[in-house]
């Protein structure tokens, strides 16, 4: 309620002030029209007296000020025209100083002063100096600020800067700079002082109001930045030291922060670069509560942009040792500002790193140095818990990844993993993911075992459970995503040299094996395939390579593979292990390593027997085994018989009849390999098995879908028939077709012959073959439909 009333009151006061200004402005205008100087001065002073109010907030006061300002423009025009008031401007300059109240007096003096300078009857520097001195009389912060801002405004186009009308022998750009600097200093003092006005209870509101006024002060810096003729020398010797002195001495957090920001924004980059030392020294002297990191960050951002703008300027950076200075300053700031949260320090490091990467992309040692400093800082605090700090560290670590698209570069940074050690597990994983993604994105290949070692060290958060991780907290989906990434990463580890590649595989295996049961299902397959690829590569090159310390022999590799997969089977993840064994078996077969392949099969069968209990899994497993076995031709008769019998036996012992049936007719292929050189010893057995399958179907009669099975068997018959198995006769096929027809009729009244598309397609195929004629057509002709 109170504040509401306060606002209303303020509105009222503002309205009164405006009315006062308008009232007196009216009379002033009348006097202006009559060219009556005395009256003009009287009413303008009265009008300006409205600005003496203390009741308004800065915002409202600004409103009032602007209205007076408009009127003063009119007055200035009048003052300019001597023929209207009849007084030399120098006398006018004295005359307005007769006003009894200081505020109207100073506004009038500034107005006449601007005319005075324009008339060039006095050196502009003298007038400016006088004005800026006399303004000291107004010590009320808000009124003083606005007065000085008025002075700045009317004098802006009258500074004796280079190229201006007011520059001359006596008036140099130094005077212009002096003037602006002094006005700036005084304004800043006033601005800082606002906080000491009024009781502490309204501190917050005051801060806000102060903030609204900051641009009045900052404007001066802006002007300084624009003055023509302020060269680097002058900036370095005069402008910057003076401004910084004021910034440091005002000991006010708001002002220091804002002004540093202004300095950085207003002056050219090359000046910053050349005065880096002074600027940074000032940064370390700011109040502890000032957000120095943002200031420094901005500075570094600007400098990095500058560096990026043109390659020509880079040598300047080297000349002034920008990196060393920045790095030094940041160290100091972090050391001195003990209260700075860790996130602040991290932000600084990120900026410094960004700067380094942009300016000195070739200096990896700098990058490492930054990371090193970061490690030191992180070590000094207990475990990092601030989420924002964590984010900054991630940013810090990501920067080099982005810059050097080749991850390999990052791997050579000795401090990189040390920084990562300070992350919590979750973030560590995020970072590891980033690293992997970077590798993926850039398609960069990690080609030496050493680098792989480092890389795995970096991403160890993904590779194994770190101490204290609560497994239950893990999100299933995230976990899968992570592990899939690791799996993808493994494929990026590649080297043409088998010897090195083997080393890589050793390293990877070493790390992956620590992953525990959750991870192995994800990580082992890519490793196995990677190894199998190596195997095939070696095979293509003609066999074993004799290495120095690790001979890359095929047997050796298979041995590793065996062990690796074994680990997986104990997870337990038998289905996957089974598949991998079969893969390896196939690879071994291709390498003509019969015993090895046999060994793998043995492992697969053992797994099947001991571990795979689920009937569906069994079906899948059987089909896989059969499929693989069918393709492998390395086995001798004895081994082969053992395996095929085993497989057939398993098939026949499946739980469901349809499954049995399907598995068995699949097994039939084991005895008939479509290869002229292949084994055809089992012609008879193939048929027998097909028959066995048929019997099984009979057994399933009554349950749903035996017809389909018959049709499937028919297809097998046709296959073997086409391939020329002499034991499959057209009559066999014919009788099977009839059997199916009868089955279909008796099965269900509703089912018509055409309702089974599979069967009808099969029949259509037979007809097609008949019509086609030729050798095959003749064969088919024997089948009667």
């Amino acid at each position, binding site marked *: 309620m109170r504040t509401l009333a306060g606002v209303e009151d303020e509105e009222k006061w503002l309205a009164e002030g405006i009315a006062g200004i308008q009232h007196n402005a009216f009379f002033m205008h009348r006097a202006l029209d009559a060219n009556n100087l005395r009256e003009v001065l009287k009413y303008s002073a009265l009008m300006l007296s409205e600005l*003496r109010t203390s009741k308004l907030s800065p915002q409202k006061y600004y409103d009032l000020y602007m209205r007076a300002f408009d009127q003063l423009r009119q007055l200035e025009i009048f003052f300019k025209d001597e023929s209207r008031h009849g007084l030399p401007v120098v006398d006018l300059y*004295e005359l307005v*100083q*007769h006003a*009894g*109240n*200081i*505020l109207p*007096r100073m506004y009038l003096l500034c107005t006449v002063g601007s005319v005075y300078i324009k008339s060039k009857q006095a050196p502009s520097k003298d007038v400016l100096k006088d004005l800026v*001195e*006399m303004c*000291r*009389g*107004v*010590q*009320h*912060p808000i*009124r*003083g600020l606005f007065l000085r801002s008025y002075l700045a405004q009317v004098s802006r186009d009258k500074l004796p800067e280079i190229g201006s009308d007011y520059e001359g022998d006596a008036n140099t750009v130094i005077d212009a700079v002096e003037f602006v600097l002094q006005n700036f200093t005084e304004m800043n*003092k006033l601005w800082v*002082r606002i906080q000491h006005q009024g009781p502490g209870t309204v501190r917050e509101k005051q801060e806000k109001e102060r903030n609204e006024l900051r641009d009045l002060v900052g404007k001066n810096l802006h002007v300084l930045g624009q003055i023509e003729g302020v060269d680097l020398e002058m900036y370095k010797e005069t402008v910057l030291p003076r401004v910084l002195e004021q910034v440091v001495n005002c000991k006010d957090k708001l002002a220091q922060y804002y002004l540093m920001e202004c300095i950085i924004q207003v002056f050219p980059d090359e000046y910053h670069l050349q005065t880096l030392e002074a600027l940074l020294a000032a940064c370390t002297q700011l109040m502890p509560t000032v957000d120095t990191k943002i200031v420094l960050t901005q500075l570094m951002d600007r400098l990095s942009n500058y560096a990026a703008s043109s390659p020509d300027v880079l040598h300047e950076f080297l000349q002034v040792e920008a990196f060393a200075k920045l790095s030094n300053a940041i160290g100091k700031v972090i050391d001195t500002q003990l209260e700075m949260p860790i996130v602040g320090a991290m932000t600084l490091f990120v900026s410094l790193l960004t700067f380094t990467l942009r300016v000195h992309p070739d200096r990896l040692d700098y990058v490492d140095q930054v990371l090193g400093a970061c490690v030191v800082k992180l070590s000094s605090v207990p475990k990092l818990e601030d989420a924002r700090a964590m984010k900054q560290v991630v940013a810090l670590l990501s920067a080099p990844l982005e810059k050097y698209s080749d991850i390999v570069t990052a791997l050579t940074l000795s401090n990189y993993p040390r920084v990562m050690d300070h992350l919590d597990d979750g973030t560590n994983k995020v970072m590891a993911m980033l690293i992997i993604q970077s590798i993926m994105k850039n398609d960069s290949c990690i080609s030496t075992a050493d680098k792989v070692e480092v890389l795995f060290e970096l991403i160890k958060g993904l590779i194994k459970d770190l101490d204290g991780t609560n497994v239950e907290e893990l999100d299933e989906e995230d976990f899968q995503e992570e592990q899939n990434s690791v799996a993808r990463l493994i494929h990026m580890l590649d080297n043409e040299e088998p010897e090195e590649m083997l080393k890589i595989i050793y390293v990877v295996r070493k790390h992956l094996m620590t992953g525990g049961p959750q991870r192995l299902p994800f990580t082992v397959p890519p490793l196995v395939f990677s190894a199998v690829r190596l195997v095939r590569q070696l095979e293509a090159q003609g066999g074993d390579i004799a290495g120095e310390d690790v001979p890359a022999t095929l047997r050796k590799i298979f041995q590793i593979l065996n062990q690796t997969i074994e680990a997986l089977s104990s997870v337990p993840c038998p289905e996957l292990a089974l598949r991998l064994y079969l893969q390896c078996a196939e690879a071994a077969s291709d390498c003509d390593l019969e015993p090895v392949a046999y060994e793998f099969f043995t492992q697969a069968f053992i797994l099947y027997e001991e571990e795979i209990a689920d009937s569906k899994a069994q079906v899948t497993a059987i089909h896989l085994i059969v499929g693989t076995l069918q393709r492998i031709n390395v086995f001798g008769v004895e081994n082969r018989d053992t395996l095929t019998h085993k497989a057939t036996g398993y098939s026949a012992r499946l739980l469901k009849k349809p499954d049995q049936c399907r598995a068995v007719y699949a097994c039939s292929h084991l005895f008939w390999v479509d290869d002229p050189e292949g084994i055809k010893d089992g012609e008879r057995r193939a048929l027998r098995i097909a028959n066995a399958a048929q019997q099984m179907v009979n057994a399933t009669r009554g349950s749903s879908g035996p017809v389909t099975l018959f049709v499937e068997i028919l297809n097998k018959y046709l296959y073997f028939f086409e391939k020329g198995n002499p034991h499959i006769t057209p009559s066999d096929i014919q009788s099977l077709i009839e059997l199916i027809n009868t089955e279909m009729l008796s099965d269900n009244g509703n089912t018509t012959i055409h309702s089974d598309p599979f069967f009808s397609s099969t029949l259509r195929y037979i007809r097609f073959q008949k019509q086609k004629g030729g050798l095959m057509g003749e064969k088919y002709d024997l089948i009667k439909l």
Partner: protein
Amino acid sequence: MNYLLGAFKPACNVSITFSDGKNRKQVPMKKENGQTALVPLFHSQDTISGKVCIDPYQGKKVEHNGVKVELLGQIEMYFDRGNFYDFTSLVRELDVPGEIYERKTYPFEFPTVEMPYETYNGVNVRLRYALKVTVTRGYSGSILEYQELVVRNYAPLPDINSSIKLEVGIEGCLHIEFEYNKSKYHLKDVILGKIYFLLVRIKMKNMDLEIRRRESTGAGANTHVETETLAKFELMDGTPVRGESIPVRLFLAPYDLTPTHRNINNKYSVKYFLNLVLVDEEDRRYFKQQEITLYRLKEDASA
């Protein structure tokens, strides 16, 4: 009717003209009735010369026991009304007793008159110069005519004119050091100076510089002191901080000032003071008064 009216009117018109009346500077002077009139300006050692013209009205004759012109320098104390102290009285007899029938002109001259005091118009006291023409008559009453003069005296530039410098304060509350560039100012002078704040523990509203005039009249137990503030000039708005120095620049020209008068004819003194006043937010006033000497500088010398 004419005759009757004529009986109450003076029989003649007496006028006084100065020989250099055309060229002599005239300055405005406030008359007793409050109106301002232009009055010729003289300085000490000036020769006052001119003519007295007696012009009888149509058909009248003026019988008289002599005509004289006096130069009077008087001090008039208001609380002692009616009593004039003539400190200067010079007489020139212009005519022996006789009759005047027609316009008659008498030249007169007071060569290099010593007029040590300046014309002064104060609160309780007035110092005036006037020419008084008396046409002495018998019972019908003398005919009197006055012509006011203004006398201003220039002072030379003072040999010693040191600045005023003082440190004042209230223990633990406010300490200031102020400096005015001179202790003696001429009337069109400008006071320059600065106020330096050594310690500020109070919140100030503003700081003014006042010019005060102290007029003391009479002597001993009868002394009347009257103080007027002639100028109030705001020097500062708001509260400064320690170390701040506020400039002073006060032009004296716009104010109605006179030179400092010390013990004029043992009757009165007029002194001037600069009063530095600080007003705090509770409207308490802290002030320090310093006497300054004002003098009149010959105009072209000051230029």
